[in-house]
Protein backbone atom coordinates (compact mmCIF):
# COMPACT_ATOMS: atom_id res chain seq x y z
CA UNK A 1 0.00 0.00 0.00
CA UNK A 2 2.74 2.21 1.05
CA UNK A 3 4.74 1.20 -2.09
CA UNK A 4 1.86 2.17 -4.34
CA UNK A 5 1.54 5.49 -2.66
CA UNK A 6 5.21 6.12 -3.30
CA UNK A 7 4.87 5.17 -6.97
CA UNK A 8 1.85 7.48 -7.42
CA UNK A 9 3.69 10.24 -5.66
CA UNK A 10 6.73 9.77 -7.89
CA UNK A 11 4.67 9.78 -11.04
CA UNK A 12 2.92 12.91 -9.86
CA UNK A 13 6.12 14.70 -9.04
CA UNK A 14 7.69 13.66 -12.39
CA UNK A 15 4.66 15.00 -14.23
CA UNK A 16 4.83 18.31 -12.33
CA UNK A 17 8.55 18.56 -13.09
CA UNK A 18 7.86 17.87 -16.79
CA UNK A 19 5.24 20.65 -16.89
CA UNK A 20 7.64 23.09 -15.20
CA UNK A 21 10.42 22.22 -17.63
CA UNK A 22 8.10 22.73 -20.56
CA UNK A 23 7.06 26.14 -19.22
CA UNK A 24 10.72 27.13 -18.72
CA UNK A 25 11.60 26.05 -22.26
CA UNK A 26 8.74 28.12 -23.69
CA UNK A 27 9.80 31.15 -21.65
CA UNK A 28 13.42 30.77 -22.83
CA UNK A 29 12.28 30.60 -26.46
CA UNK A 30 10.26 33.79 -26.02
CA UNK A 31 13.20 35.45 -24.37
CA UNK A 32 15.55 34.58 -27.25
CA UNK A 33 13.06 35.90 -29.74
CA UNK A 34 12.80 39.16 -27.81
CA UNK A 35 16.58 39.44 -27.66
CA UNK A 36 16.93 39.22 -31.43
CA UNK A 37 14.23 41.82 -31.92
CA UNK A 38 15.90 44.20 -29.53
CA UNK A 39 19.28 43.66 -31.21
CA UNK A 40 17.88 44.50 -34.64
CA UNK A 41 16.29 47.59 -33.24
CA UNK A 42 19.47 48.68 -31.59
CA UNK A 43 21.48 48.28 -34.81
CA UNK A 44 18.90 50.30 -36.66
CA UNK A 45 19.05 53.08 -34.09
CA UNK A 46 22.89 53.11 -34.18
CA UNK A 47 22.90 53.34 -37.98
CA UNK A 48 20.41 56.17 -37.95
CA UNK A 49 22.40 58.01 -35.30
CA UNK A 50 25.62 57.60 -37.30
CA UNK A 51 24.01 58.96 -40.41
CA UNK A 52 22.64 61.90 -38.45
CA UNK A 53 26.05 62.64 -36.97
CA UNK A 54 27.71 62.52 -40.37
CA UNK A 55 25.09 64.92 -41.64
CA UNK A 56 25.74 67.24 -38.72
CA UNK A 57 29.53 67.11 -39.26
CA UNK A 58 29.08 67.86 -42.93
CA UNK A 59 26.86 70.78 -42.11
CA UNK A 60 29.29 72.05 -39.47
CA UNK A 61 32.14 71.82 -41.92
CA UNK A 62 30.28 73.78 -44.48
CA UNK A 63 29.46 76.43 -41.91
CA UNK A 64 33.04 76.61 -40.68
CA UNK A 65 34.35 76.94 -44.22
CA UNK A 66 31.99 79.80 -44.72
CA UNK A 67 33.11 81.46 -41.47
CA UNK A 68 36.78 81.07 -42.41
CA UNK A 69 36.15 82.51 -45.81
CA UNK A 70 34.38 85.49 -44.30
CA UNK A 71 37.18 85.94 -41.74
CA UNK A 72 39.84 85.81 -44.44
CA UNK A 73 37.97 88.39 -46.40
CA UNK A 74 37.63 90.64 -43.40
CA UNK A 75 41.31 90.20 -42.51
CA UNK A 76 42.31 91.20 -45.99
CA UNK A 77 40.21 94.24 -45.66
CA UNK A 78 41.77 95.04 -42.27
CA UNK A 79 45.31 94.64 -43.68
CA UNK A 80 44.47 96.87 -46.53
CA UNK A 81 43.18 99.42 -44.11
CA UNK A 82 46.29 99.03 -41.92
CA UNK A 83 48.58 100.10 -44.77
CA UNK A 84 46.81 103.36 -44.68
CA UNK A 85 48.04 104.15 -41.15
CA UNK A 86 50.43 107.04 -40.90
CA UNK A 87 54.18 107.07 -40.19
CA UNK A 88 53.36 108.37 -36.78
CA UNK A 89 51.49 105.26 -35.86
CA UNK A 90 54.48 103.30 -36.97
CA UNK A 91 56.76 105.36 -34.76
CA UNK A 92 54.44 104.98 -31.85
CA UNK A 93 54.34 101.30 -32.49
CA UNK A 94 58.15 101.12 -32.66
CA UNK A 95 58.42 103.17 -29.51
CA UNK A 96 56.06 100.89 -27.74
CA UNK A 97 57.95 97.92 -29.01
CA UNK A 98 61.22 99.48 -27.84
CA UNK A 99 59.74 100.23 -24.45
CA UNK A 100 58.55 96.71 -24.14
CA UNK A 101 61.88 95.27 -25.23
CA UNK A 102 63.77 97.61 -22.88
CA UNK A 103 61.62 96.49 -20.04
CA UNK A 104 62.20 92.92 -21.02
CA UNK A 105 65.94 93.44 -21.30
CA UNK A 106 66.00 95.23 -18.00
CA UNK A 107 64.09 92.47 -16.31
CA UNK A 108 66.27 89.91 -17.97
CA UNK A 109 69.44 91.66 -16.81
CA UNK A 110 68.08 91.87 -13.28
CA UNK A 111 67.28 88.24 -13.32
CA UNK A 112 70.66 87.48 -14.84
CA UNK A 113 72.44 89.56 -12.25
CA UNK A 114 70.59 87.83 -9.48
CA UNK A 115 71.39 84.44 -10.94
CA UNK A 116 74.98 85.46 -11.34
CA UNK A 117 75.18 86.57 -7.73
CA UNK A 118 73.61 83.39 -6.53
CA UNK A 119 75.81 81.29 -8.78
CA UNK A 120 78.93 83.14 -7.69
CA UNK A 121 78.00 82.64 -4.09
CA UNK A 122 77.28 79.01 -4.70
CA UNK A 123 80.50 78.58 -6.66
CA UNK A 124 82.43 80.46 -4.01
CA UNK A 125 81.26 78.04 -1.40
CA UNK A 126 81.94 75.15 -3.70
CA UNK A 127 85.44 76.35 -4.61
CA UNK A 128 86.25 76.86 -0.94
CA UNK A 129 85.24 73.33 -0.14
CA UNK A 130 86.96 72.07 -3.22
CA UNK A 131 90.11 73.96 -2.26
CA UNK A 132 90.09 72.44 1.21
CA UNK A 133 89.51 69.02 -0.28
CA UNK A 134 92.24 69.53 -2.90
CA UNK A 135 94.71 70.74 -0.25
CA UNK A 136 93.83 67.72 1.82
CA UNK A 137 94.27 65.43 -1.16
CA UNK A 138 97.54 67.10 -2.08
CA UNK A 139 98.80 66.68 1.47
CA UNK A 140 97.81 63.01 1.42
CA UNK A 141 99.46 62.61 -1.96
CA UNK A 142 102.56 64.44 -0.75
CA UNK A 143 102.83 62.16 2.28
CA UNK A 144 102.26 59.07 0.15
CA UNK A 145 104.88 60.23 -2.33
CA UNK A 146 107.30 61.06 0.47
CA UNK A 147 106.83 57.59 1.92
CA UNK A 148 107.21 56.05 -1.52
CA UNK A 149 110.39 58.08 -2.14
CA UNK A 150 111.84 57.02 1.20
CA UNK A 151 110.90 53.41 0.51
CA UNK A 152 112.39 53.60 -2.99
CA UNK A 153 115.55 55.19 -1.62
CA UNK A 154 115.88 52.45 0.99
CA UNK A 155 115.25 49.75 -1.60
CA UNK A 156 117.68 51.35 -4.04
CA UNK A 157 120.30 51.63 -1.31
CA UNK A 158 119.79 48.00 -0.36
CA UNK A 159 120.11 46.85 -3.98
CA UNK A 160 123.17 49.02 -4.54
CA UNK A 161 124.76 47.76 -1.32
CA UNK A 162 124.10 44.15 -2.34
CA UNK A 163 125.51 44.71 -5.80
CA UNK A 164 128.49 46.55 -4.39
CA UNK A 165 129.16 43.74 -1.94
CA UNK A 166 128.86 41.16 -4.71
CA UNK A 167 131.18 43.12 -6.99
CA UNK A 168 133.59 43.61 -4.12
CA UNK A 169 133.67 39.86 -3.47
CA UNK A 170 134.11 39.12 -7.15
CA UNK A 171 136.86 41.69 -7.38
CA UNK A 172 138.55 40.21 -4.34
CA UNK A 173 138.41 36.71 -5.83
CA UNK A 174 139.59 38.02 -9.19
CA UNK A 175 142.42 39.92 -7.53
CA UNK A 176 143.48 36.84 -5.56
CA UNK A 177 143.41 34.72 -8.72
CA UNK A 178 145.37 37.32 -10.64
CA UNK A 179 147.91 37.68 -7.84
CA UNK A 180 148.32 33.93 -7.73
CA UNK A 181 148.95 33.83 -11.45
CA UNK A 182 151.31 36.77 -11.22
CA UNK A 183 153.20 34.99 -8.42
CA UNK A 184 153.48 31.87 -10.54
CA UNK A 185 154.59 33.85 -13.56
CA UNK A 186 157.11 35.81 -11.48
CA UNK A 187 158.51 32.63 -10.05
CA UNK A 188 158.76 31.03 -13.48
CA UNK A 189 160.39 34.14 -14.81
CA UNK A 190 162.79 34.33 -11.89
CA UNK A 191 163.66 30.70 -12.36
CA UNK A 192 164.35 31.21 -16.02
CA UNK A 193 166.34 34.36 -15.38
CA UNK A 194 168.30 32.65 -12.62
CA UNK A 195 169.00 29.66 -14.81
CA UNK A 196 170.17 31.79 -17.68
CA UNK A 197 172.15 34.19 -15.52
CA UNK A 198 173.86 31.42 -13.55
CA UNK A 199 174.50 29.41 -16.68
CA UNK A 200 176.13 32.39 -18.36
CA UNK A 201 178.43 33.40 -15.52
CA UNK A 202 179.79 29.94 -14.85
CA UNK A 203 183.23 29.18 -16.36
CA UNK A 204 184.75 25.76 -16.88
CA UNK A 205 186.26 25.63 -13.43
CA UNK A 206 182.94 26.56 -11.84
CA UNK A 207 181.12 23.95 -13.90
CA UNK A 208 183.67 21.30 -12.95
CA UNK A 209 183.48 22.22 -9.28
CA UNK A 210 179.67 22.16 -9.31
CA UNK A 211 179.66 18.87 -11.22
CA UNK A 212 182.09 17.10 -8.90
CA UNK A 213 180.42 18.53 -5.82
CA UNK A 214 177.03 17.29 -7.06
CA UNK A 215 178.49 13.83 -7.73
CA UNK A 216 180.16 13.73 -4.30
CA UNK A 217 176.90 14.75 -2.61
CA UNK A 218 175.01 12.08 -4.51
CA UNK A 219 177.59 9.49 -3.56
CA UNK A 220 177.40 10.52 0.08
CA UNK A 221 173.66 10.14 -0.04
CA UNK A 222 174.03 6.73 -1.72
CA UNK A 223 172.21 7.99 -4.75
CA UNK A 224 174.94 6.57 -7.00
Amino acid at each position, binding site marked *: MEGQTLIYASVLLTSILGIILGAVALSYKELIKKYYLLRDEHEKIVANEKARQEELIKKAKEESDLIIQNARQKAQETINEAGLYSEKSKQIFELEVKKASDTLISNFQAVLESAKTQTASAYGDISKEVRIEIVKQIETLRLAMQQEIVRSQTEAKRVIDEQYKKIEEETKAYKAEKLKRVDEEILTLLKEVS*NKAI*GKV*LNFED*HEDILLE*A*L*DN*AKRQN*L*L
Partner: protein
Amino acid sequence: MLNDKTYSEANGLARTRQEKNLFLDELNLLSDALYASQPGAFEDALNKQVRLKTANLIHKLLAGGEEGRTVVDNLRKFIETAKTVKITLAFEPREETLDKLFAWVIKNLGTPIIMDISFDESIVGGAIVVIDGKYRDLSLKKRISELFQNKEMTFNKLLAQ
Protein backbone atom coordinates in the same frame (compact mmCIF):
# COMPACT_ATOMS: atom_id res chain seq x y z
CA MET B 1 193.32 -11.75 -15.85
CA LEU B 2 190.66 -9.18 -16.84
CA ASN B 3 190.82 -7.54 -13.45
CA ASP B 4 194.47 -6.91 -13.73
CA LYS B 5 195.64 -3.37 -13.27
CA THR B 6 197.00 -3.30 -16.80
CA TYR B 7 193.69 -4.24 -18.25
CA SER B 8 192.06 -1.65 -16.11
CA GLU B 9 194.27 0.89 -17.81
CA ALA B 10 192.41 0.03 -21.03
CA ASN B 11 189.40 1.76 -19.59
CA GLY B 12 191.40 4.99 -19.78
CA LEU B 13 191.56 4.53 -23.53
CA ALA B 14 187.82 4.10 -23.72
CA ARG B 15 186.44 6.64 -21.27
CA THR B 16 183.50 7.67 -23.40
CA ARG B 17 181.17 5.98 -25.85
CA GLN B 18 183.08 7.61 -28.75
CA GLU B 19 186.43 6.47 -27.34
CA LYS B 20 185.05 2.98 -26.82
CA ASN B 21 184.01 2.78 -30.48
CA LEU B 22 187.42 4.04 -31.54
CA PHE B 23 189.15 1.53 -29.30
CA LEU B 24 187.06 -1.33 -30.63
CA ASP B 25 187.88 -0.24 -34.18
CA GLU B 26 191.56 -0.34 -33.24
CA LEU B 27 191.17 -3.81 -31.77
CA ASN B 28 189.44 -4.96 -34.96
CA LEU B 29 192.34 -3.65 -37.02
CA LEU B 30 194.78 -5.45 -34.83
CA SER B 31 192.72 -8.60 -34.96
CA ASP B 32 192.64 -8.45 -38.74
CA ALA B 33 196.38 -7.94 -38.74
CA LEU B 34 196.86 -11.04 -36.60
CA TYR B 35 195.14 -13.11 -39.27
CA ALA B 36 196.87 -11.41 -42.18
CA SER B 37 199.22 -13.52 -44.35
CA GLN B 38 201.97 -10.91 -44.49
CA PRO B 39 204.62 -11.35 -41.86
CA GLY B 40 204.87 -8.50 -39.36
CA ALA B 41 201.42 -7.23 -40.17
CA PHE B 42 200.36 -7.12 -36.50
CA GLU B 43 203.45 -5.19 -35.47
CA ASP B 44 203.02 -2.86 -38.37
CA ALA B 45 199.38 -2.16 -37.51
CA LEU B 46 200.28 -1.69 -33.87
CA ASN B 47 202.85 0.94 -34.75
CA LYS B 48 201.01 2.75 -37.52
CA GLN B 49 197.24 2.25 -37.35
CA VAL B 50 196.36 2.67 -33.67
CA ARG B 51 196.90 5.44 -31.17
CA LEU B 52 200.21 5.50 -29.33
CA LYS B 53 198.40 4.97 -26.01
CA THR B 54 196.73 1.87 -27.41
CA ALA B 55 200.01 0.56 -28.82
CA ASN B 56 201.82 1.18 -25.51
CA LEU B 57 199.12 -0.67 -23.56
CA ILE B 58 199.26 -3.67 -25.87
CA HIS B 59 203.08 -3.73 -25.78
CA LYS B 60 202.86 -3.70 -22.05
CA LEU B 61 200.46 -6.62 -22.05
CA LEU B 62 202.51 -8.54 -24.63
CA ALA B 63 205.56 -8.00 -22.50
CA GLY B 64 203.76 -9.84 -19.73
CA GLY B 65 204.00 -12.99 -21.84
CA GLU B 66 200.54 -13.08 -23.39
CA GLU B 67 199.94 -13.75 -27.05
CA GLY B 68 198.70 -11.00 -29.32
CA ARG B 69 195.41 -12.79 -30.09
CA THR B 70 194.69 -13.29 -26.38
CA VAL B 71 195.49 -9.70 -25.57
CA VAL B 72 193.19 -8.36 -28.30
CA ASP B 73 190.35 -10.72 -27.38
CA ASN B 74 190.61 -9.99 -23.69
CA LEU B 75 190.73 -6.26 -24.29
CA ARG B 76 187.64 -6.46 -26.51
CA LYS B 77 185.82 -8.55 -23.92
CA PHE B 78 186.91 -6.16 -21.18
CA ILE B 79 185.54 -3.12 -22.95
CA GLU B 80 182.40 -4.72 -24.34
CA THR B 81 181.35 -5.94 -20.93
CA ALA B 82 181.91 -2.51 -19.36
CA LYS B 83 178.80 -0.93 -17.93
CA THR B 84 177.67 2.43 -19.21
CA VAL B 85 176.91 5.51 -17.20
CA LYS B 86 174.91 8.18 -19.02
CA ILE B 87 175.93 11.66 -17.99
CA THR B 88 174.26 14.86 -19.21
CA LEU B 89 176.32 17.99 -18.70
CA ALA B 90 175.43 21.66 -19.03
CA PHE B 91 178.60 22.37 -20.98
CA GLU B 92 180.76 20.67 -23.55
CA PRO B 93 183.59 19.17 -21.50
CA ARG B 94 187.18 19.84 -22.39
CA GLU B 95 189.80 17.11 -22.07
CA GLU B 96 190.80 18.17 -18.59
CA THR B 97 187.20 17.98 -17.44
CA LEU B 98 186.80 14.52 -18.95
CA ASP B 99 189.89 13.38 -17.03
CA LYS B 100 188.57 14.70 -13.76
CA LEU B 101 185.12 13.26 -14.37
CA PHE B 102 186.47 9.87 -15.44
CA ALA B 103 188.73 9.75 -12.41
CA TRP B 104 185.73 10.33 -10.18
CA VAL B 105 183.62 7.79 -12.05
CA ILE B 106 186.13 4.89 -11.91
CA LYS B 107 186.89 5.70 -8.28
CA ASN B 108 183.28 5.81 -7.18
CA LEU B 109 181.42 3.62 -9.66
CA GLY B 110 184.03 0.98 -10.44
CA THR B 111 185.60 -0.32 -13.68
CA PRO B 112 185.21 -1.16 -16.47
CA ILE B 113 182.85 1.70 -17.17
CA ILE B 114 182.06 3.82 -20.19
CA MET B 115 180.71 7.37 -19.94
CA ASP B 116 177.96 8.19 -22.43
CA ILE B 117 178.15 11.96 -22.29
CA SER B 118 175.61 14.36 -23.76
CA PHE B 119 175.23 18.12 -23.59
CA ASP B 120 172.21 20.20 -22.52
CA GLU B 121 172.84 23.73 -21.33
CA SER B 122 169.25 24.05 -19.97
CA ILE B 123 170.26 22.06 -16.91
CA VAL B 124 172.43 25.10 -16.02
CA GLY B 125 175.10 23.16 -14.18
CA GLY B 126 175.84 19.85 -12.47
CA ALA B 127 174.73 16.70 -14.25
CA ILE B 128 171.96 14.22 -14.84
CA VAL B 129 173.25 10.71 -14.26
CA VAL B 130 171.64 7.44 -15.32
CA ILE B 131 173.29 4.22 -14.13
CA ASP B 132 171.97 0.71 -13.60
CA GLY B 133 168.48 1.98 -14.51
CA LYS B 134 168.60 4.69 -11.86
CA TYR B 135 167.96 8.27 -12.88
CA ARG B 136 169.61 10.95 -10.77
CA ASP B 137 169.04 14.62 -11.48
CA LEU B 138 172.01 16.35 -9.91
CA SER B 139 171.58 19.47 -12.03
CA LEU B 140 171.73 23.04 -10.89
CA LYS B 141 168.38 23.63 -12.58
CA LYS B 142 166.71 21.21 -10.22
CA ARG B 143 168.41 22.75 -7.20
CA ILE B 144 167.26 26.22 -8.24
CA SER B 145 163.73 24.91 -8.84
CA GLU B 146 163.68 23.32 -5.38
CA LEU B 147 164.97 26.52 -3.90
CA PHE B 148 162.14 28.49 -5.49
CA GLN B 149 159.63 25.87 -4.48
CA ASN B 150 160.73 26.11 -0.86
CA LYS B 151 160.73 29.86 -0.98
CA GLU B 152 157.42 30.08 -2.83
CA MET B 153 155.25 30.31 0.25
CA THR B 154 157.43 32.97 1.79
CA PHE B 155 157.42 34.80 -1.50
CA ASN B 156 153.62 34.59 -1.75
CA LYS B 157 153.26 35.88 1.77
CA LEU B 158 155.49 38.81 0.93
CA LEU B 159 153.45 39.57 -2.18
CA ALA B 160 150.19 39.29 -0.27
CA GLN B 161 151.25 41.95 2.20
